[in-house]
């Protein structure tokens, strides 16, 4: 029965088709064709809808005038004319033809012109030549690289270390290796430029907290926790990181690591610690801020530092647990895509580590010197000392800004120049003013090294004092 009914319906349909008026059929036909056209036609771009003729386009192209590739730099730009250093930039430094005592290079342990370091580098040079001619993956891994990684891991008492061929690229590559789009990074406002670039490359959400202000950090972490409770599914895949420096390059202050570790476990955020200034400086054996506070190094997920300051070589390293570090061997851009560290620089770094291990007393000496000059520089009218007494690099800022950054910079430069004339080499801390997230105020950076004698430290302090008084009053 059912089939008979269906057949009847079909017949009826065909009959209706015959009986329908012609205009009806044509209309329906057109509609069907229209639908087909809409289905199959190419989607158009909005751009191409503009009715510009070829000639108009040509005119537009003719008309367009780009900005110059770079704006002209005024001849008197404060950063255009570099100081020229003749000879080695060690304890005694010849700047623009004038011999000075160096209070500007980050050669904290005086290893730059250490004969043992030089001999080790020379031995490497004689064995391997200068360059490596390849990235680590493609025959650019030398036995010295493996040795150095081993030694760094042992020195820091971590499972593994990985070396980069450029200090800046170390933390800047390490952060985006882990932190991806959608992840959240809590970072100190005073964080150095390399960290800022690493964060930018990671494209994560960045939350800035006030410099060394744990209450502010906790506030942000709490806010995030509340946010997470609203959307637990998202929270389950959102990694959280806290990025801090051991000693801050921009302020000379030390991070409150014990509190940070507490917050880490409370809010389940990983800590990345950048130790370029504190490695080889803080702690009884120079292991940095973890040793200074007596914190288990495994509580810090990743430590990165460059080998360009205390170790007086070039390059940088990250260390931590293998679970963390090994990931960079395929994901650290500056590691995978760059030629490896010249072996002579790795050789120099190994010997520098040897020296650090053999003379742990050196760190106490450095600390004592820092304290000495820190104390001696107090109470200069017009200048204030910014930074911890134990930091070998700290800042001298104007007590009162003149109101314009340009003018401040000029005043400080005047002090630097006059000190230079009196054989004390100093430098202003340089920043890219437009690029910095939170631009620090202009300052003179004073660097203490173990090579500076007590007498030289006193002389430097009194010179700065006298010059500052002459310039600022």
């Amino acid at each position, binding site marked *: 029965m059912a089939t008979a009914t269906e057949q009847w319906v079909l017949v009826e349909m065909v009959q209706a088709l015959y009986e329908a008026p012609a205009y009806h059929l044509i209309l329906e036909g057109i509609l069907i064709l229209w639908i087909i056209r809409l289905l199959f036609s190419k989607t158009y771009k909005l751009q191409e809808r*503009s009715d510009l003729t070829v000639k108009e386009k040509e005119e*537009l*192209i003719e008309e367009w005038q*780009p900005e*110059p*590739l*770079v704006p*002209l*730099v005024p001849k008197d730009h404060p*950063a*255009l004319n*570099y*100081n*020229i*250093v*003749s000879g080695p*930039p*060690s304890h005694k430094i010849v*700047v623009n033809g004038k011999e000075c005592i160096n209070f*500007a*290079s980050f050669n904290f342990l005086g290893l*730059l012109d250490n004969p043992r370091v030089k001999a080790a*580098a020379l031995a490497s*040079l004689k*064995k391997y*030549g*200068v*360059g490596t*001619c390849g990235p680590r993956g*493609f*025959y650019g*891994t030398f*036995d010295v690289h493996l040795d150095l990684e081993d030694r760094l891991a042992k020195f820091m008492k971590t499972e593994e270390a990985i070396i980069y*061929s*450029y*200090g800046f*690229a170390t933390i800047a590559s390490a952060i985006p290796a882990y932190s991806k789009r959608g992840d959240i990074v809590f970072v100190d406002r005073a964080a150095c*430029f390399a960290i800022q*670039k690493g964060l930018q490359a990671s494209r994560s959400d960045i939350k800035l907290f006030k410099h060394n202000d744990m209450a502010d950090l906790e506030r942000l972490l709490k806010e995030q926790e509340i946010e997470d409770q609203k959307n637990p599914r998202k*929270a389950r895949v959102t*990694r959280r990181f806290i990025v801090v420096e051991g000693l801050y390059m921009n302020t000379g202050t030390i991070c409150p690591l014990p509190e940070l570790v507490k917050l880490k476990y409370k809010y389940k955020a*990983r800590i990345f610690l950048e130790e370029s200034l504190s490695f080889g400086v803080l702690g009884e054996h120079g292991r940095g801020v973890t040793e200074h506070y007596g914190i288990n190094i*495994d509580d810090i997920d990743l430590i990165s530092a460059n080998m360009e*300051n205390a170790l*007086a*070589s*070039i390059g940088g390293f990250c260390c931590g647990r293998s*679970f963390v570090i*090994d*990931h960079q061997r*395929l994901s650290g*851009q*500056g590691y995978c*895509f760059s030629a490896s560290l*010249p072996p*002579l*620089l790795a050789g120099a770094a190994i010997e520098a580590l040897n020296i650090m291990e053999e003379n742990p007393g050196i760190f106490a000496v450095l600390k004592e010197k820092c304290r000495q000059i820190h104390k001696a520089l107090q109470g200069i009218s017009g200048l204030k000392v910014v930074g911890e007494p134990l930091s070998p690099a700290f800042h001298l800022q104007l007590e009162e800004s003149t109101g314009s950054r340009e003018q401040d910079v000029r005043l400080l430069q005047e002090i630097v120049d006059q000190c230079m004339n009196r054989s004390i080499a100093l*430098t202003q*801390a*340089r920043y890219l003013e437009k690029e910095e997230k939170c631009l620090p105020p202009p300052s003179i950076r004073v660097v203490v090294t173990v090579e500076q004698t007590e007498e030289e430290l006193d002389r430097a302090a009194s010179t700065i004092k006298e010059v500052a008084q002459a310039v600022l009053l």
Partner: protein
Amino acid sequence: MRPEPGGCCCRRTGRPNGCVANGEVRNGYVRSSAAAAAAAAAAAGQIHHVTQNGGLYKRPFNEAFEETPMLVAVLTYVGYGVLTLFGYLRDFLRYWRIEKCHHATEREEQKDFVSLYQDFENFYTRNLYMRIRDNWNRPICSVPGARVDIMERQSHDYNWSFKYTGNIIKGVINMGSYNYLGFARNTGSCQEAAAKVLEEYGAGVCSTRQEIGNLDKHEELEELVARFLGVEAAMAYGMGFATNSMNIPALVGKGCLILSDELNHASLVLGARLSGATIRIFKHNNMQSLEKLLKDAIVYGQPRTRRPWKKILILVEGIYSMEGSIVRLPEVIALKKKYKAYLYLDEAHSIGALGPTGRGVVEYFGLDPEDVDVMMGTFTKSFGASGGYIGGKKELIDYLRTHSHSAVYATSLSPPVVEQIITSMKCIMGQDGTSLGKECVQQLAENTRYFRRRLKEMGFIIYGNEDSPVVPLMLYMPAKIGAFGREMLKRNIGVVVVGFPATPIIESRARFCLSAAHTKEILDTALKEIDEVGDLLQLKYSRHRLVPLLDRPFDETTYEETED
């Protein structure tokens, strides 16, 4: 131009199989007599294809990419399919602890943290890369010259960990290092000069260029680099990768447009991203694609706001390190002039390696360095040192001296490294009073032609330009990546093999880098062994159907990326 997990060098979206397209003249540049000639050549079964391009080229430009044979492509996909299936199986076994887990794990205390990296991100690493991991990171313990000593290592747990046996595999022929001119040496004038500077200056600098790390040596180097390149001024940086990633942001920013070749190196990609400019990508070395992007950019302006672009910067490389192709510089320059764009040329692989006196791709085509706005290159390869440079007009360099991220925040070049560059560069320029440098450049060019010709004759599929010292040999199948690397090492030849994600998934390859230090005898030994391994692994895929690069069709899909 997307971030790649475990990426190795460069990347592109799939390559369309080439075919000879219509012979119309487009924009007066391309494909006039060329297409007709190609069609005739294809019909006659000939291999060579010479592009004339309306007299823009002063020399023949022979560059070809043979089409992947269909059967090979299918088998390659099947190979990856099998690998993936086994990967899932083994992950399953690992999950249920039937198979032992070798990889490092999270600390007990932090098990409840959000996992540091997603497990599936590492699927490829765990199940594919790990099987053939012994082909990479082979540690060496000698100069990376024509022959190299490799430390023998063994793995007892299927490449999860390596043990060094203490043996050294001596005198392995080095076809992997970027030692184009043979300056990676531990004897001779360069080493002596570097040693002297090392003893005087020490290894490090401990400061930045703008603070107090600007040594007289750096000034000397920059003056020399400018002379070498034939530009007004130059600046040198401590790392080649960072030269790109830290200087492009100084040149362009928001409201600017970057047109980037799809196969550009990761450092250029990173620099472009960090700059905040809009990035658009053109097909590899495809001038029609580039011209269309240029034209559209100027006509339509910025998306949404419709403001005109502030400036347009074209990013290209001299030699593409995975493809062995040479940039079509005469056409790029013609386009750049026509559309008033700026040109950033990365000569990482081409400086020293191309041109009659080693001045790079500009000299190779007989062009004027003035026409390239930003000349960038590295010292790692041809000069046997490390670091990078940027050369150009005085205004450009003045601007970079004040605004380059590198100059302000990064430690300057190590003095002995600087000295190595100075000495090797002077040698190439003939300023050391010998013709040694010139001979090296010629030797490299000869080696390149010879090695490429012989490989092609053997029936391998070889990509790239006939003058490019980077020689990719196609392997295609994943199993052959590992097999080729191991078989070659067994025969005392060190080669570089690369697969996904450094290349498209089916286009795995081996890459040889020629050097002036390779003697005829070394090359012949290498060729003999490659021939043998080629037969053993059935790698001789070539059917002599070369598809000229230009004749590949391109579709108009471009993806765009904006950063803020």
